[in-house]
């Protein structure tokens, strides 16, 4: 028994040291940021989502589509909280291709809230042709479609409430937008590529997309912007917005979930006592009296 335990311990130690070595050679990992939406009670910050939408509209949308989001979503509960009127006006600013009409012709009309946010390119081929051969990915699901491996055995605890960590996607996006640097001396960046610390392989087709002061945020009552107009802040705002586009029902999900879990736990508690009462006439928790089970554990 003791020998078996020693063998198990030795194997476990070997694995732990092995993973430590591996995660160390993986390069720089994105920094863990604080997000309003993380955790059991996390919610979206409406003002941040509105700023994020502004960044998307003024910067990202010149290359990246948002194919799964419709204008009306921007006014739905749990989102950026634009009013229905604002969304109608916003949609009308876009031209949407529709048709064919009764004469068989395609035509352009002003956008409606039910329309998808129009993509910058008519199709993937056009997007690729205009961007050096590779179409810029659609951003709708980006916050859930990207991640990075933390290494080690963190997966054992990362799912737990309060102590866990599951915001790798948003952290990666934030890090990537802040990860444009000059390449190290011995690193050659091929033409059409750009050096990014956090991109796998470090060569990313997208040039540095945003600079300090590029987007002008709404001013507060004192005439100063409420948040700094920096790349760091822009990337936080766009990341929060992308988390919402990826998971538009997150608030409803967490609210319903907390109620469901509390209900199930209370019900389980009541059932436990019903079970105890019913079993009391046969001697209660029978397996607890088995000496064999207790010696081993």
């Amino acid at each position, binding site marked *: 028994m003791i020998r078996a335990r020693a063998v198990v311990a030795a194997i476990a130690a070997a694995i732990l040291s092995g993973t430590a070595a591996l995660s160390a050679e993986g390069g720089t990992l994105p920094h863990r940021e604080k997000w309003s939406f993380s955790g059991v009670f996390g919610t979206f910050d409406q003002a941040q989502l509105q700023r994020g939408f502004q960044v998307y509209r003024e910067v990202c949308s010149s290359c990246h589509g948002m194919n799964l989001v419709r204008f009306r979503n921007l006014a739905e509960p749990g989102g950026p909280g634009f009013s229905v009127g604002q969304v109608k006006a916003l949609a009308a600013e876009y031209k949407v291709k529709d048709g064919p009409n009764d004469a068989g012709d395609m035509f352009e009309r002003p956008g409606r809230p039910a329309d998808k946010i129009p993509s910058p390119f008519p199709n993937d081929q056009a997007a690729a042709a205009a961007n050096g051969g590779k179409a810029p990915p659609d951003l709708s699901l980006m916050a859930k479609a990207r991640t990075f491996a933390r290494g080690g055995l963190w997966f054992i605890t990362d799912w737990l409430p309060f102590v866990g960590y599951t915001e790798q996607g948003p952290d990666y996006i934030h890090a990537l937008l802040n990860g444009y640097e000059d390449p190290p001396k011995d690193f050659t960046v091929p033409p059409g590529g750009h050096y990014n610390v956090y991109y796998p392989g470090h060569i990313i087709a997208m040039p540095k997309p945003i600079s300090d002061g590029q987007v002008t945020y709404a001013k507060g009552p004192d005439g100063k912007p409420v948040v700094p107009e920096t790349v760091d802040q822009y990337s936080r705002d766009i990341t929060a917005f992308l988390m919402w586009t990826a998971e538009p029902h997150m608030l409803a999900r967490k609210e319903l979930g907390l109620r469901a879990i509390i209900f199930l736990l209370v019900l389980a508690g009541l059932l436990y006592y*019903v079970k105890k009462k019913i079993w009391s006439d046969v001697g209660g928790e029978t397996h607890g009296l*088995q000496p064999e*089970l207790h010696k081993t554990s």
Partner: protein
Amino acid sequence: MSAHATTYVPKSALAKWFEARLPIVGLVHSSFIAFPVPRNLNYFWTFGAILIVMLASQIVTGVWLAMHYQPSATEAFNSVEHIMRDVNYGWLLRYMHANGASMFFIAVYVHMFRNLYYGSYKAPREVLYILGVIIYLLMMATAFLGYTLPWGQMSFWGATVITNILAAIPVVGDTIQSLLWGGYSVGNPTINRFFSLHYLLPFMIAGVVVLHVWALHVTGQNNPAGIPIKSGKDAVPFTPYATIKDVFAVVVFFAFFAYWIFLQPNYLGHADNYIPANPGVTPAHIVPEWYFLPFYAILRAVPDKLGGVVLMFGAVIILALAPWLDTSRVRSANYRPIYRQFFWVFIFCCFLLGWLGSKPPEGGYVLASRIATFYYFAHFLIVMPVVGLFETPKPLPGSILESVTGPGKQVSGSGIPAGAAAAPQTKG
């Protein structure tokens, strides 16, 4: 089931009339009300009920999802997002179904490990046990097919890897592969037939579950002492005792399930599957869902493709041989001091294989996979036959009642005398 004499007595004239023509009420009565349950069962025995509820949950959410899903290479991904965004509570249905698969496998693994620890596979429960292995195989097929349906990157490439593996089967491999593909690669015909099969298999599972429950009610349940019910004092009627215990366990399990659905719905999936399938771009690491990782590690541990396939399927098939590989007639590992230690090493080996399956097949991981694969098979082919021959089991309690209340209060005088099983057993 007809072999069961029922204690059900129809009261009303209508009930008597009906019972004389179709004795289904009596059948339910003898199977779920009067059925004798060993009184010493612990909570590991509630996972059968949990699994039945999970199967029902998967079928109900699946039927609803199928009302909104489009099995087509161009529409599947967007239709899943349509469910997530525009269908009322569609996100709940989808997250219940996707995480439900993981919960189903957690429950089935607990159920299987309980079976192996307490020797439930041994005579007279071999057929009951093999039906369980068949259910597990069907579950694996269903889960694999279901994971391809969202048509994300991991769906597509997982389907590509697994169907390519099948091509390694001699003679019929290529035919099986093109039948599954419906063409010359994974594409639109593939997703159509995978959807069809994914809808079919759960009902086959339900059918085998009926046989599984039937076989259970012929042989009766095993229990932590591993000895049969010898008198009425060893057992309690299924209702209300087992019923209330199962209901309580199911509700606790659902609280755990709810945590995943509502608060951690994407943890058990892959980020890559939120990228639409693209045959031109291969993901950096193609990994199956967590419940397949031990088998994936076994597959990759073998340098030869066919050899890997044989061992991967062999790892499941060998489970079905356990009743004949284990030479000890003592069922419960509680009374098998040596086997019990090997059991825990085996559990560790399964977890280790799972972890290795998630790692790239290089360097020390491959070597570790090979050692763990060897041990996995050695547990069945060496440990099970050999330990049974040399181990001296602890004395078994005289009855289930005695295992609960301690010796000296023995009421039942029937059965084998205590100590008779204490000598080394050979398969007889």
